[in-house]
């Protein structure tokens, strides 16, 4: 049993420390939680709850924000 689990972040496999919360994942990726919206297994998780939700192996995480668009 390794110390990391593999999750899918924005379509790419990522290894994150076992027991990480979503907030931990953001930190691992050096992302500021105030600038990102997090979808976890197709459910949106609001900022206050990011540290309350742990990730499990194979979880699909989408991290999105606003970009230029018409």
């Amino acid at each position: 049993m390794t110390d990391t689990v593999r999750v899918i972040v924005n379509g790419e496999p990522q290894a994150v420390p076992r027991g990480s919360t979503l907030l931990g994942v953001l930190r691992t990726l050096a992302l500021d939680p105030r600038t990102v919206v997090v979808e976890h297994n197709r459910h949106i998780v609001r900022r206050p709850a990011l540290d309350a939700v742990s990730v499990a192996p194979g979880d699909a995480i989408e991290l999105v924000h606003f970009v230029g668009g018409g």
Partner: protein
Amino acid sequence: MAIPLEGGRDTPFEVGGRAFRSRLMVGTGKYADPAVMVRALEASGADIVTVAVRRVNLDRAGSDDGILGRLDPKRFFLLANTAGCYTAAEAMRYARLGREAGFNDFVKLEVIGDQETLLPDVAGLLEAARALVQEGFHVLAYTNDDLVTALRLEDAGVAAVMPLASPIGSGLGLLNPYSIRLLKQRLHVPVVVDAGVGTASDACVTMEQGVDGLLMNTALAAARDPVAMGHAMRLAVAAGRMAFLAGRMPRREVAVPSSPLEGMLD
């Protein structure tokens, strides 16, 4: 030069219960240079600017590729779109993510039906519009110029109907003024023409049909000078609106002299 304009003539432009000063909305895509974009937006005088919801680019982690570093949400009203979505479910997912960004519960709803033309899928659009209205969204629905679809969208409770002038990014201008005029005559919700405007006269003639507002992106971003075109579009939208309110002269197939016929010399 400053161009003052007498105030008080026009009713406020209201969408989804909010009033905006400018009837021009602009998109934020396709600019080569973000600094130019900001100046073009400012030149346009727009209050509402559209943004897209996309994944954070993890390869450039740290260097934020988002647009919020460029746009002050206090200055601009950020309107998230669902561009790139081909089903009602997909568009609803993007709409919810956009709302979660925390600025407002408005969404410019796009459900695309054809990749080549980016024309809307009206069945998917109606389905998503109904569901999102139920969820409390103010839905601004990008649609074609079909009156019956527009009436159904109004029945669904959308905040605005956004018919296209011509395909997104085409710059072909207002292909069918008759249809747009008809929509405006029949709908009670605001009509905001979205997509296809290429230059100032397109914007002006569109507003002269009586519509409530206009949204454009490529006309600015792909102009030789986006900032100057931003200025031009602000003026053109105001000109078209003002002319609509002023009531144009009747057309005549015969000439009518501007100078008096009497008082000529012998």
